[in-house]
C-alpha cells in the first residue's frame, strides 16, 4: 500500500497555477525530496498532505485513505510535521512534552522519560535540556527538540520542511543520518540543502510541474 499518493492534484494560488495534475506515490519506507525554487509550492505540498491546504481538483490518499473532512483529524495522527525556525511553545521542555502526551488522541501512547533522554543524547543535547525552558533554547536546540517530540510519538510519515536549513554542517549531518537510519519510516523532505540531495532519495522537481501564468 502507498503511504502517500497524489492523484491528478491541481491547486491555484493567487492567480498562479501552483500544481497542475500532479501525481506521485510513495510506498512504506519511501524517501522523497521535493525540489524547486522558492514560490513553487514546496511547503504548500507538505501542508496539503496534512489537510491544511485543500486541493482544487484531484485526490490525496494517505495510507490508502482519501483525505476528507471525516478522517482528516485521524489521518494527521499518521504524520509528523516539522518546519524550520518554528516557535513551538513556552515553558520547560518536559512540561511541554507531557502536555503533548496528554492530548486526548495521544493518551494511548505512554510517555517514557528514558526514551526522551535517549533521543536527547542521539541529537547531542545534554540531559538537563528537559529542565530548560523552550524560550531559552537556541534555534538549533529548539529545532532538535521539535524533531525529538515527533520521534517520541513514533509517527509513520515524517514531513520535514527545510529542517536543516538554519543548522551548521555537523548538525545537518547528524539529522540526515538519523532519519536515513529509520528504515521503516516514510520521509518527505523539502530542502535546499545539498546534503539531502547526496542521499539516494527519489526527487520531485516542482520547477517542471505547475506553470506560472
Amino acid at each position, binding site marked *: 500500500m502507498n503511504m502517500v499518493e497524489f492523484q491528478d492534484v491541481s491547486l491555484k494560488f493567487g492567480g498562479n497555477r501552483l500544481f497542475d495534475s500532479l501525481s506521485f506515490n510513495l510506498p512504506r519506507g519511501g524517501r522523497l525530496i521535493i525540489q524547486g525554487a522558492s514560490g513553487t509550492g514546496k511547503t504548500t505540498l507538505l501542508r496539503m498532505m496534512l489537510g491544511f491546504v485543500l486541493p482544487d481538483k484531484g485526490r490525496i490518499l494517505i495510507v490508502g485513505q482519501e483525505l476528507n473532512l471525516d478522517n482528516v483529524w485521524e489521518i494527521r495522527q499518521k504524520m509528523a510535521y516539522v518546519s524550520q525556525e518554528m*516557535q513551538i511553545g513556552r515553558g520547560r521542555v518536559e512540561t511541554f512534552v507531557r502536555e503533548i502526551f496528554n492530548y486526548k488522541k495521544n493518551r494511548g501512547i505512554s510517555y517514557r522519560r528514558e526514551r526522551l533522554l535517549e533521543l536527547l543524547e542521539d541529537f547531542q543535547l545534554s540531559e538537563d535540556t528537559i529542565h530548560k525552558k523552550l524560550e531559552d533554547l537556541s534555534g538549533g536546540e529548539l529545532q532538535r527538540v521539535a524533531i525529538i517530540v515527533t520521534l517520541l510519538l513514533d509517527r509513520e510519515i515524517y514531513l520535514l520542511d527545510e529542517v536543516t536549513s538554519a543548522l551548521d554542517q555537523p548538525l545537518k549531518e547528524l539529522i540526515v543520518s538519523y532519519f536515513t537510519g529509520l528504515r521503516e519510516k516514510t520521509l518527505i523532505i523539502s530542502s535546499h540543502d545539498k546534503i539531502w540531495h547526496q542521499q539516494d532519495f527519489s526527487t520531485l522537481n516542482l520547477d517542471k510541474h505547475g506553470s506560472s501564468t
Partner: protein
Amino acid sequence: MEAAPEIGLWRLMAAFGLLLIPLGLSLAVRLGIFRQLLVSAGRMTGQLFLMSIVLLYLFRWDNPWLNVSWVILMIFFACFSAMVNSQLSFGRFFFPVFMAYFIGAGMILLFFNGIIVNYDNMFTARLMVVVGGMLLGNSLNSTIIGISHFYESIKKDNKRYLYLLSLGASQNEALLPFFRDSMLAALKPFMANMATMGLVSLPGMMTGQILGGADPQTAIRYQIVIVLAIFTAVTVSVALSVYFTSRRAFNEYGILKQDLFRN
C-alpha cells in the same frame, strides 16, 4: 471635608494655556502633531461637556431602565472602539465581542453594585452609569490587547499551530497555548500597574473622591474594589471573546479563516 471648589472659565482657559508648551515643542522640533493635538483636545472638551449634560439629566430622571440602556450603549461604543483599534474584521467579531463584554462587564457591574456597594437601589445612575463607565473604559484597552494578540499570534505563529495539530492536538488543545499567551498579554501589564498603585500613581477615582470631599479611608476602599472589579471584567471579557469568536473563526479542517482581518 469640603467639596472641590468650582473651576471658573478663566481658570479653565489657563489650563488650555498649558497646551502652548506641547504645541510650541511640536513646531520647534517638527513632531507633526500640532493639528492632531488641537483636534484631540477639542474632542475631549466637547465630549466631556456633552457628557456633563447627559449625566445631569440621567441623575435628574434616575430611571433604572434608562440607566441600563445607557450602559448597553456604552458597551456598544466600547466594542466599536475596540474594533477600530484592532485589525480584526468588523463583521465577524463585533457581535461575539459585544456579547462577551455584555456578559463579562455586565455581570461584574451587577456584582459590584448589588453586593460590594450596598446601596438601596443598585440601578441608580450614580452606580450604573458612573461605575459602569469606569469599568468599561478601564477594561477596554486590555481586552483589545487580549483578543488581537490571540488572532494575530495564530496568524503569525501559524507554523506552531500547525505543528501542534500535527502532534495530535484537537483544535482546542492546539489553541490553548495561544489562549494562555493572550490572557497573559492582557493581564500582565495590569498586574504590574496594580503592584505599584499608590506608590507611583494616585489613581483617578481615588483622587476624584478625595477632591469631592470623601475621607481617604473611604476613597481607598472604593479604589481597591474598582481595581479588582476591572481586573476580573478584563479576564472574563477576553476569555469569553476568544471563546465566542473561535467557534466561527476556523473551518472544519481547523484552519484559521482568511477573512478575519481587515487589510
